């Protein structure tokens, strides 16, 4: 019944305190759900006949909140869900043993009278402290298939078996749609509704008609500020610092505008079936309407471009790249560098013109993967060239994403060594080269090194860097090599920083008790077996490491690794004036049809993502590189 489309039965937004902050149900979809179940039961295939209409009713808000809280209690956070452990039991999502069950969950509702029932698939997204739950419409068959997965008594399914989770998900595009819904709802909750960034190098931005109409569509001059240098590249969980912040934020979540959200839902999915999930478009239509907007004379105006631009014409492209790097400075471990980039575009063009943009140097840049905005019709890539033809939407949009290796030398290279002299004192040494091989117009706007010690408190440090300034926070030492405002351009510099760091003696850490109790419940350490290890001649580092790691808790599956067990230095920088992948756009080759006089602007910027210098003297995480088969 649900076919290949996506319809949403209900949306709930829950607070961390297990109350429902917002909920929306769609009666039309619900009717289809009931019809599907009744048809199923009418066929006589329903083995659920005895339980009556229980699964047919959507639960009340408080029941959902209670079920969600109950699930949290059962599944835990870090290891409890997504992976089957020795505390998993039949009927839990973690029994299915797949990480996606952290995002597609089941909720068990236990009614007081009689047996409970299950809600599935509930797409879960955690945003800004809130939990966004979206329940799409599925047919009874996949529902039952998942139920069987929860109940199977064997050791876990493989991809080759019938009815595995992958094939269920494959046949349910509605889950994918629900993800998108949850994502945009999350964006609205967190206020993360700005459009992609487009950098304008010169000139004031001229507000067109659109700007006066909508006001909320981001324009180039009001591009969102560049991420603060210390913070992680995104507000994601990928850095320990960020994780700590999000934890502290958990206590009080920022309230969100429910009217805004309600309005958006009426516009985007009035009857539960999403039609347009572009926040800017939906809200502009709802708030401003189309009073004086002309229609194109001979073409259909796309739904994703509800307004036509009027004013001075130009087209702006920006290449934004993020470099992730793991630098080891070891013979046995190769460094890992990878660039993820996007080309954002803002086309201030009147009418509905087609823009063609030839991409060159794909092969040279070893661009591994690229994906395009849905307005783009990409030609088949030939040897080194691919042409994109698109009818640009209004406002800023991401034209394409790509992944590529870093095709020039890493902008910051060298090594970081930290050796513990005693339990509370360590000696470290940096030896770095910045911007070696980078010629003008590359400019390094700023560069900072952070040595995080999330599990120790820094008492003091000693030592002077060859360049830059050093500061200290409770859990880290920060070394500013290049400060903003005094960009580094056209030359390379060497920077060294030998020094020592002293920590406050370790006190018994107050462990996040709820967390620990879930994660470590399966394995009670045998105190007997531990005591001899220190005497076995292990090095001091190992000994300290072992001691520290004892009260470590398991990281979430969303983390790439247990950051806290490693010593590393994180490099943050921003480089403008070029791309590290080497993939660039030639603004002169941009063609607009029908032809208009519109200047094309282009700018490039690279910032650091996870750019890590692993302690050369300590343990470090690695990954194998693919071998040729």
């Amino acid at each position: 019944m649900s076919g290949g489309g996506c319809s949403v039965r209900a949306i709930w937004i829950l607070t961390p305190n297990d109350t429902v902050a917002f909920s929306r149900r769609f009666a039309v979809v619900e009717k289809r759900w009931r019809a599907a179940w009744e048809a199923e039961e009418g066929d006589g295939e329903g083995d659920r006949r005895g339980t009556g209409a229980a699964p047919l009713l959507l639960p009340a808000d408080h029941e959902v909140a209670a079920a969600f809280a109950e699930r949290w209690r059962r599944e835990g956070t870090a290891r409890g869900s997504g992976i089957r452990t020795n505390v998993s039991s039949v009927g839990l999502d973690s029994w299915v043993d797949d990480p996606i069950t952290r995002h597609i969950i089941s909720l068990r509702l236990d009614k007081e009278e009689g047996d409970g029932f299950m809600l599935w698939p509930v797409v879960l997204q955690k945003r800004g402290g809130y939990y966004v739950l979206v329940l799409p419409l599925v047919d009874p068959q996949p529902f039952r298939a998942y139920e069987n997965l929860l109940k199977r008594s064997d050791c876990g399914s493989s991809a080759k078996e019938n009815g595995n989770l992958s094939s269920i998900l494959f046949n349910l595009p509605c889950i994918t749609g629900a993800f998108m819904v949850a994502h945009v709802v999350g964006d609205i909750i967190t206020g993360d509704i700005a459009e992609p960034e487009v950098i304008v190098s010169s000139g004031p931005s001229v507000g067109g008609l659109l700007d006066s109409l909508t006001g909320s569509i981001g324009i180039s001059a009001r591009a969102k500020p560049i991420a603060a240098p210390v913070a992680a590249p995104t507000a994601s969980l990928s850095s320990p610092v960020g994780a700590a912040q999000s934890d502290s934020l958990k206590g009080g979540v920022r309230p969100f505008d429910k009217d805004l959200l309600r309005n958006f839902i009426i516009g985007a999915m009035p009857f539960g079936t999403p039609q347009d999930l572009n926040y800017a478009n939906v809200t502009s239509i709802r708030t401003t309407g189309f009073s004086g907007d002309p229609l194109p004379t001979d073409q259909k105006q796309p739904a994703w471009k509800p307004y036509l631009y009027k004013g001075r014409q130009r087209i702006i492209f920006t290449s934004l790249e993020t470099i992730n790097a793991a630098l080891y400075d070891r013979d046995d471990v190769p460094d890992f560098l990878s660039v993820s980039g996007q080309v954002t575009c803002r086309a201030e063009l009147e009418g509905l013109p087609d823009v063609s943009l030839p991409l060159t140097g794909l092969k040279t840049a070893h661009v591994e993967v690229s994906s395009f905005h849905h307005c783009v019709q990409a030609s088949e890539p030939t040897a080194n060239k691919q042409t994109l033809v698109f009818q640009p939407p209004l406002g800023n949009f991401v034209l394409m994403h790509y992944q590529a290796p870093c095709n020039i030398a890493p902008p910051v290279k060298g090594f970081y060594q930290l050796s513990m002299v005693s339990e509370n004192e360590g000696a470290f040494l940096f030896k770095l080269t910045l911007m070696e091989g980078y010629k003008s117009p590359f400019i390094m706007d700023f560069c900072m090194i952070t040595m995080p010690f999330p599990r120790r408190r820094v008492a003091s440090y000693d030592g002077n860097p060859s360049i830059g300034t050093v500061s200290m926070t409770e859990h880290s030492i920060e070394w500013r090599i290049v400060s903003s405002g005094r960009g580094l351009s056209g030359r390379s510099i060497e920077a060294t920083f030998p020094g020592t760091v002293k920590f406050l003696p370790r006190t018994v850490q107050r462990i996040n008790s709820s967390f620990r109790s879930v994660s470590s419940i399966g394995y009670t350490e045998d105190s007997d077996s531990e005591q001899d290890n220190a005497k076995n001649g292990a090095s001091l580092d190992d000994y300290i490491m072992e001691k520290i790691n004892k009260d470590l808790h398991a990281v979430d599956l969303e983390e790439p690794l247990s950051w806290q067990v490693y010593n590393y230095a994180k490099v943050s920088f921003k480089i403008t004036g070029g791309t590290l992948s080497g993939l660039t756009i030639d603004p002169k080759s941009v063609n607009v049809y029908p032809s208009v006089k519109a200047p094309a602007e282009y700018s490039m910027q690279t910032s650091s993502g996870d750019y890590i210098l692993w302690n050369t003297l300590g343990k470090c995480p690695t990954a194998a590189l693919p071998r040729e088969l």
Partner: protein
Amino acid sequence: MAPPPAPGPRCLLAAPPRPPLHLKPLLLSLVDDHLLPPSPSSSPPSSPPSLSFPLDHPRRDHLLVTVVSAFASALSAPVSRDHEAPHLAALVDALLAAANRPNHAPDRAARALACDALRALDAALPGLLAEALGHLYALAAAERSPAAQSYLLLLASAARHAVRLGRLASGASILAVLTPAAAMEMMAILAEVASAVLQWAPAIAAHIKVQFGGMVHSSSPMLLHSLLTLFVQFPDAFGAEDERTMAHRLALAAREVHRPLAVRLLALHWLLGSVRFRNLVPGLARWFYPAVFDPLALKAKKLDCLASVAAGVDGEKVAAADRASDQATGLLDDGLVCVSAFRWLLAWSTETGVAFRALHSVLVGAAPHSTDGTRCSGAGELLNSTFFHHLQAILVDMASEHQGLVPVIADFTNRLLACNSHRWAGERLLRTLDECLLPRLEPGYQLASYYPIFEKIAQNETVPQHRLIELLTKQMVSLTKKHGPDTELKSWSQGSKVVGICRVMLKHHHSSHIFLPLSHLLVLTIESFPDLEVRDHARICLRMLSCVPGKKLRHIMGVGEQPSGVTPSHSGSLYDIPSPRAAQDLKSMPDLASYIHLERVVPLIVKQSWALTLPNFSVQNRPSGSILSIQDVSSAPSEQENPTGPTIERIGYRQETLRVMDSKGAATLQILRRYFTCVPDYLHSSGFKIRIQCTFRFDSEPFNDAWGLDLPVSGSDGADELPALYAVTITFSSSAHFGKIPSCHIPFILGEPPGSGMDIVPIDNQNREESSYCASVMIELEPQEPSPGLIDVSVEANTENCQVLSGSLKPITVGIEDMFLKASVPPDTPREGVAMYYQDLFHALWEACDSSTNTGRETFPLSGGKGSAAINGTRSVKLLEVTPKVLIGAVERYLASFVVSVSGGSLVTILRGNGVIKNVMWEENVPDASVDADALVPYSPDNNLQLQLVDDDEIGVGAERYGHESKRDMGIMRVMIFLPPGYHLLFLMEVGRASTLVRIRTDHWPCLAYVDEYLEALIS
């Protein structure tokens, strides 16, 4: 299929009434949310007020949505819109009217909403818009504003329902104007329409590819997924090349860091979720290599893909099998690198979870569960593959190098063992651990980390245990050696765990397989382990090992122990709290004696049903109460004599002593003195013990009926179904003077299988079964008086379900014959002189028991020197009217060991020839009738025994009367019986052709009461 003529839209907006409406969005939302559940019988809303809204009203949209929702959810198809639901018709017409102004600029949003509303109504009431299809087509074709999307969707949706209802319409349009979400919906609709018309228009498949193929490069996951569904629905539209592109695209989508994690995971799922793409997975291996900064969830999923590749590579069994295996193992190794921290992180780290999940995934990938759940495919090949060996090697290395991982490995094994399809893998793994890991381990405190694995090995029946037991033995030795004042706790903790593993072994293995080494280990522990508690536990284990057989043992070990991995809720029978029934009144239970039996092995000759009891017979010579108080006979008050009953004074034990002067008397005295020094003094030390061998058994069926046992152990083996008793204690008491009778203990006994009692069983088989169905019990008496009596038996035992059984059984009868012992021989008597000694003793006692002699006045010191005995004889005779053959048979059978001499030619010849009686004095000639014919007392039940005894004269007369009646010419047998604690019974049997005269003398006259009956029974 020409579109039907469009009905002219009727305009209902002409004369709108204006109800005052100040509805707030909250109210609308409330209405929206509470449209559920619509009761099927409710009538639709009475009027569509929204239609009268001014176009510029701020809440018009919301209200429209609400009203349409209400209609859609309240009505049920099929609806004839003109007759049954006039309001619906009005609403539809109004909406159509609103939509019917294509390219009218300012209200395009309202028109779009009207289209959406129509579509929602159409979805709820399929076929509603079928008539308007052509009109919708015209509208959709004309519309150029962004609202065109809504028109197209409406058209497609209406067309879909037309298709579903059998009325076809065409519906292909331009995707370019749709948002991704709308495109998804559109594609779903179009796909259905297209597949419906596919057989008439095959070209549509190609058209689908042209229309949608370009979406493969879209960054929108919704478009990607929609495209995937098209791949499945139109297999002919896309070629192998397209499939490869798509698969490649999906593999790469998982590498795109800008995508949300869930989408990256989904992309991999899609790849694995369809057979079409799954086959292409192996070629994509290099794209599945996890990167350092991939979130762990993604690493886990990528490892799944690698595992799938590895399993595929190994499964292919191509010519270059070695290379394939190398590839597979290489992939596994490479994959694990990304979570390599699991080797040194703590066991609960997420990396560890991911790593072991990958190992499992590889294994299950190579040998998936079969659909019928019995046996998984590929098991045999996998077991022998390099790949599986490699996996095992990894685990063994991990276990030996990283002790922290041992519990995880144990869990991993457990997971396989718990799975019906992969139990074999778990077992093989345990065997490998046993073979490869155990030899690498050294005893010491750090060995404790491995106990979780040891436990798994001990639990598994298929793994030989000798290595483990050997290692544990070494460990116990090592612990004992290292024990010191500061390691007490450690010794206790580790020792307990070792014994715990032994317990587990007991529970899971046939005791015969592990008996020898395990008992060695336990004995070692009992003997030398420093901790008392551990020794105790070991003792208990050893006792169970040696006493309780096989499966019953394993069952009993399971009681009260929670098997790992099983939640308590599932283990009903294991958690039987001893039910209150145990304490329940036992009176309501059927009599225990009816199905629990304690029986004599050798039945009594005399089927005696009475016993002469002489209360307080010898009480005056004892410290008051010293024995009586021990004989606590409260349990059988019915048989208890009144303690204040009449006292019969003991005739013996005269205090004065008289000397006997004549030489014959002196010789007699000499012999008696020597003899009595060998007789133990029962008053001052322990006397002679009488042993009565009995068997203990119980019947299964009545037992089960009585105790309602439903045995949890199941199996074809008969022994499993039989009930068992544990820790049986049998206590005895008696009102007769048998002293304190020690109780007996039987650790374990099985019930007798029903019907087996009557079966004819081979003898050797019987012996074997004796141990499990039948226990032998030895009752030890220390009689203070040689008299028959009854022994009351009470029993206490535990049943399998922890109930306590107690009650009394049928009493055991003790006959006079049980008291028959051989007289003791002084230790300095040479072996060959025993017969002579006995003869002399016989004559001496014979003399002494003659009431006419004076020895009765003599006292003889007993062994130990404290007490002494005196002889006060009594005489009697008994005529046995049987043939010598019968008599000889009886004597040889029952009294052979008590015969001291045989005289008389023919008798000697016969007895010697029979060879039963040995080591006695053989006299060919009968001594001339020196036998006194003076003690012939014919016994008759009518006579008063005591009177006869007292009246000497009458005895003499009687003897005279019988003395000459028959020839007793065959010979004489002399029989001497010792009666504990210090009495004697002497028979002088004059065997004749027709009858035998038995002359009886004794120094314990009450025994004559039983002797007569005994002799009667002997020959009957």
